[in-house]
């Protein structure tokens, strides 16, 4: 293992970077599409005529299109980009099967396209984050199995004995998403487009939020932590602060996450003890989450000066910081009394986007910008634009989340306010909805800034890959394989 550092004993592997480039471009394109739909539905909430009066473009149909596009297309594709790129290098072997890699890529993109067609048509099974109808669910299962075979096949032929911590995080993603997807979608098909879940009532709700919360845990958190554990050390050019902490917080995180789903069902018909169980596990989840955040931030100890000049590190630090903020906010919101205020309000939407825009988005941008010159062996076309993107995105997130927090607190407090006679102080619901309008406009502003940043990245990427190839003069950088 250590021999690999010595130049003569170097193992030269022909990595498959073609698949990485494919997933990379898919991330960039779907990211812009998903965020554009986000901006459109944000506009609709501020100004309803933006639904155009057509069934296909109403909020109820576009909202699942937004959530699925940003989670499964944007976040999903960056996870695959990072996994295919870093696992080959960490295990010093090419992927087990190039064919399976390609089936995975095209299959996944087809699934996304089918979602983009069915949702606007109103064809959905109405489970949040699992709206896909059963035939597409079957396709997801098959493609995921293809991915899993390739993933574990690659692990089996690895040339390095120790499995680096990032790969453990990827592994939890591969296994848990398979389990979540299958259990939550068990249903009895009635026709080609319609099916009935095998669960009913409270059991159905519990399964759905066990799935929903663990989608956050194992789609938006663990693979991203895997990315952090590989790309943050690479970008900062120093090993992770504490490897021991990384393996302890890994097991802590995956053990606790699985139990936290009931925090979505506080004050519901779920038995009280199960609600309390979910709440307690959610609060404990703060510890491993912050273990991960601190491990990331402390890696920069002694290298903070690099932040001033390196936009990639800027993206990473803000991303990891937002991870810390949303995993502090989440446990607080899981406390029954706090949830009584937050639930059903825009506070939840604020929490979601501080995690999604801050943690997932910023880390994604960092990884993309780090990979861009390396995958295509070209200089980034507009280096200054990377820093501009960073500032647009950061300001956008702040405007978005602050507006939603303020809106959510206002809503929550006004709903529960009573006058001296003990009657509701705001008995007319629509009055409170009207008071949200300025906050919705602010959110639109923040979201638009964030979206514009992503468009700048798209332009930068396409300009870069059309540019001239780097001349192999400087470092002994080998041309990317294949």
């Amino acid at each position, binding site marked *: *293992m*250590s021999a*690999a*550092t010595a130049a003569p004993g*170097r*193992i*030269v*592997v022909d*990595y498959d970077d073609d698949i990485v480039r494919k997933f990379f471009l898919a991330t960039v394109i779907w990211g812009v599409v998903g965020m554009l739909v986000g901006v459109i539905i944000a506009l609709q909430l501020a100004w309803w005529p933006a639904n155009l009066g057509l069934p296909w473009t109403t909020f109820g149909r576009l909202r699942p299109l937004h959530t699925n596009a940003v989670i499964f297309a944007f976040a999903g594709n960056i996870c695959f980009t990072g996994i295919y790129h*870093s696992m080959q*290098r*960490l295990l*010093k072997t090419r992927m087990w099967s190039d064919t399976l890699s390609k089936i995975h890529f095209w299959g996944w993109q087809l699934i996304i396209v089918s979602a983009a067609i069915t949702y606007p048509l109103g064809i959905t099974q109405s489970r949040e984050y699992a709206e896909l109808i059963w035939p597409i669910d079957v396709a997801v299962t098959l493609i995921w199995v293809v991915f899993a075979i390739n993933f574990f096949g690659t692990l089996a032929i690895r040339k*390095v004995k*120790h499995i*680096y*911590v*990032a790969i453990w995080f990827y592994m939890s993603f591969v296994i848990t998403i398979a389990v979540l997807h299958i259990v939550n979608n068990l249903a009895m098909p009635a026709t080609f487009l319609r099916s009935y879940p095998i669960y009913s009532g409270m059991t159905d709700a519990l399964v759905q939020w066990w799935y929903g919360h663990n989608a956050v845990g194992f789609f938006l958190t663990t693979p991203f932590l895997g990315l952090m554990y*590989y790309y943050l*050390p*690479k970008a900062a050019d120093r*090993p*992770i602060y504490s*490897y*021991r902490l990384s*393996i*302890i917080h890994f*097991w*802590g995180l995956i*053990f606790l996450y699985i139990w936290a789903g009931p925090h979505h069902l506080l004050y519901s018909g779920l*038995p*009280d*003890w*199960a609600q*309390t*169980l979910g709440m307690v596990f959610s609060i404990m989840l703060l510890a491993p989450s912050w273990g991960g955040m601190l491990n990331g931030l402390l890696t920069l100890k002694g290298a903070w000066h690099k932040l001033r000049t390196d936009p990639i590190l800027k993206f990473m630090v803000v991303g990891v910081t937002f991870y810390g903020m949303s995993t502090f906010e989440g446990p607080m919101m899981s406390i029954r009394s706090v949830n009584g205020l937050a639930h059903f309000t825009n506070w939840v939407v604020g929490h979601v986007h501080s995690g999604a825009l801050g943690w997932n988005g910023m880390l994604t941008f960092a990884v993309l910008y780090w990979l861009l010159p*390396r995958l295509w062996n070209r200089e980034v076309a507009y280096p200054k634009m990377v820093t501009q993107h960073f500032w647009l995105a950061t300001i956008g997130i702040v405007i978005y989340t602050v507006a939603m927090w303020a809106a959510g607190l206002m809503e929550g407090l006004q709903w529960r306010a009573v006058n001296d006679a003990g009657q509701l102080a705001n008995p007319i619901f629509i009055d409170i909805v009207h008071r949200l309008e300025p906050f919705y406009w602010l959110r639109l502003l923040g979201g638009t800034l964030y979206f514009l940043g992503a468009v700048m990245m798209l332009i930068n990427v396409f300009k870069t890959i059309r540019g001239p190839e780097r001349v192999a003069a400087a*470092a*002994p*950088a*080998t041309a*990317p*394989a294949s």
Partner: protein
Amino acid sequence: MHPLIEQARETIGLGWMAAVMTILFMVAYFGWIWYAYNPAHKQMWDEAAMLPFEEGIDL
């Protein structure tokens, strides 16, 4: 005991299982910490932390 936990115990009627699980997981957790922080393993972790920098082809 907190009334809710008491209620949980009664509802599931399997308090012994909760107790056994708690003990098992605590043993596993502390055992894992002991393994991770055991000085004998320090070198192994230090080497593992360098894995991202040991590439065949330097990208």
